[in-house]
């Protein structure tokens, strides 16, 4: 048996985690507040749409995905006080006015004939932007000081990937004509332009190009 009192390195040879990270506590809290706001808007939209879609399989998936995003919002809500924001509502904000405009356009379709538009907004625009913002954050924050955020990002990303795949498969099965391809593409372009103006889920710098880099 190995000597239990023999000194060992605090970081094992296979543990390559690094201390430096791109975000300080304040910047992390700001991003987390943006994530929570966006996840809330997404779960509210999915919940509202359930009654408006006639396709039974889509109806059920929206109910399931509604909870996934509510749970992400809850995880971010719980993370905020750990980032020195004792009033989580204060930072539960959209990244900017363009993001508010994006959500308004996303949730505009209501008629039962517009399931394609509803799904395009969520699964071809909103969720891919969550995936990119979360991935950038996970890969650039401190692996040691910000481990709790990384854990939440990993849990959320697993759902985002699964939901994106579900949504994309539903869309591919609903789009049956060249005209419907055009409809989907037109709505996609409209929403993507609004998201471009917003700069992503957490505003400009959601996936890099931050104006100021701290902690490196």
């Amino acid at each position: 048996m190995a000597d239990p009192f023999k000194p060992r390195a605090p970081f094992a040879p296979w543990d390559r985690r690094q201390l430096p990270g791109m975000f300080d506590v304040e910047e992390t809290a700001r991003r987390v507040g943006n994530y929570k706001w966006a996840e809330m808007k997404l779960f509210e939209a999915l919940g509202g749409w359930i009654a408006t879609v006639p396709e039974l399989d889509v109806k059920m998936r929206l109910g399931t995905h509604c909870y996934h995003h509510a749970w992400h919002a809850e995880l971010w809500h719980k993370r905020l006080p750990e980032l020195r924001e004792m009033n989580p509502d204060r930072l539960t904000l959209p990244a900017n006015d363009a993001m508010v405009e994006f959500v308004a356009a996303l949730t505009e379709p209501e008629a039962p004939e517009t399931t394609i538009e509803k799904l395009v907004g969520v699964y071809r625009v909103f969720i891919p932007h969550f995936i990119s913002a979360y991935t950038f954050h996970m890969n650039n924050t401190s692996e040691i000081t910000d481990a709790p955020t990384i854990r939440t990002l990993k849990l959320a990303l697993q759902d985002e990937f699964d939901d994106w795949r579900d949504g994309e498969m539903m869309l591919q099965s609903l789009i049956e004509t060249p005209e419907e391809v055009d409809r989907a593409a037109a709505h996609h372009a409209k929403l993507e332009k609004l998201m471009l103006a917003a700069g992503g889920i957490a505003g400009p710098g959601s996936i890099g190009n931050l104006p100021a880099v701290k902690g490196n």
Partner: protein
Amino acid sequence: MRKFFPVDSLARDSRFNQITMSQSQADPRSPLMAADTDKRPKANRLQPSRPDASDAARSLMHGIFVGEIQALEGAGRTCHDFETGTEAPFALKLDMARQAWDEARHVEISVKLSEWMGSEIGQYAENTVLFEAACSTDPVLRLAGVNRALEGLAIDVFTTMKEFGGIAGDPYLEFCEDWMLADEVTHVKMGSDWLRRITENDPDRRKKALEFQSVVDKIFSFGGTRSDSQESPIGLARRFRELAGFTDAEVEDIADVSLRALEERKEFTRQAQADAVEQFAAS
């Protein structure tokens, strides 16, 4: 997308046929509408020994299926219809999102059970009265109507179906109903907890909510379909209601309301039959 979605706009595919509560109650195939003769069984409780047990169970399962769809839609609408913080607490909306997921699973389960029992989607009409309880503009009334009254009824229905599955020797049915029953107890408890928490310092709002629940309970007693009486197809699941946060007095109130609904329905039926005889004689 608008706030507050009207019941007549619920989106369905071409297989579904929607009817109102009064149309449903006037259905002559209902056992409660049968003529009061010596040949008529005095017990309507859903049991395998009933001659029409198979079709009654299939009909009830289809009713569960469409009820779960409406419960899914109602929970989803509560996530959307109210502003977080000013109109509904964040945690309440999280609970409603969780309920939406649970109801989505219940739709999946009931679709598979319906298939197992030999029926098809749309074989029976869809009564949309369940979603109407989810249309209140006050989230507390919605919780009272949907989570306490409607989901409370679901506890009674699932208990009856679980017992039916057990007696009929159908472990598949019994297994699924047991799982759905666990979720429904959670949903009713959610409603009980939120009702008490939100109206803690607002006795008028609590009174209004409980009155609304009582009205919905009476409607959802389906004119006597659910009560302690053996004449009702569905029994009152007292033990599971206790687990879900109902007090003894509240369970007694529901039992009284249900029995009154049964008596009113029987009186209505007697009157309708007397009128029909009179009209036939006059013609």
